[in-house]
């Protein structure tokens, strides 16, 4: 009976950890997205939200094993997302030359403390979130899979 409940051959941690992870990992991802989107209104922003998003993927990897997390977000996709973040941030900064100078806030700023306000700052937050989230996930991935990468050579 116990052997049926806890499958020792399976990759990852025990059944308890997997169940709790399945319940919480979506909420962690949503919380990270919330922090990013409200970065111009409340504490937090691109970096903090990006770290939380990366932690949700790391949580998946710790509980279910490497292959499961890599199916959701592999190295190639993470690298592409990271590059998109960097290019988006630079593009927003260069578009400021339309108004005159680097990082010029060329969009309509709107009223303070509303969700659609502050011009380019939410877009910059999203770019930073992509860069930090994918980058942190990649750092963790490389540090964990270092040995297996080396043995392939």
């Amino acid at each position, binding site marked *: 009976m116990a052997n049926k409940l806890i499958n020792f051959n399976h990759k990852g941690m025990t059944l308890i950890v997997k169940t709790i992870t399945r319940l919480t990992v979506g909420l962690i991802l949503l919380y990270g997205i919330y922090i990013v989107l409200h970065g111009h209104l*409340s*504490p937090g922003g691109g*970096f903090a939200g990006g770290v939380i998003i990366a932690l949700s993927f790391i949580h998946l990897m710790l509980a279910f094993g490497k292959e499961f997390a890599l199916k959701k977000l592999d190295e190639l996709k993470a690298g592409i997302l990271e590059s998109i973040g960097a290019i988006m941030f630079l593009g927003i900064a260069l578009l400021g030359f339309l108004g005159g100078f680097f990082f010029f806030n060329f969009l309509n700023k709107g009223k303070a*403390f509303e969700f659609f306000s502050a011009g380019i700052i939410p877009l910059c937050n999203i770019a930073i979130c992509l860069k930090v989230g994918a980058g942190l996930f990649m*750092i963790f991935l*490389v*540090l964990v899979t*270092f*040995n297996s990468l*080396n043995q392939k050579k």
Partner: protein
Amino acid sequence: MIEYFLCFILFIIGLYAVLRKRNIIKIIIGLGIMEYAVNLFFILIGYHQYGRAPILAKEQVISNTVDPLPQALVLTAIVIGLAVTALLVAIAIRLYEKYATFDITKIRELKG
């Protein structure tokens, strides 16, 4: 005044770990402790008594906030500290791969 002294003690603990321990992982942890002692010191310098967090909120008068400049500085320092720790751990993994030990007294052949 006592809190600055406690920060200094925390810094000394980190320095002891860096200078005295032989395990590379413990040295990295010591560097982290030193870094956070300095961060804590900066935050404490900016503190006023009864000061609230320097966050602009709706329909709220700004009065008696703590100094926001050290907080912005420390936020940047935390990000840089994350990158430095990742780099140190990567170097430690490479050293372990080459010498099969974390003991720095046994890592002798530094050339090649």
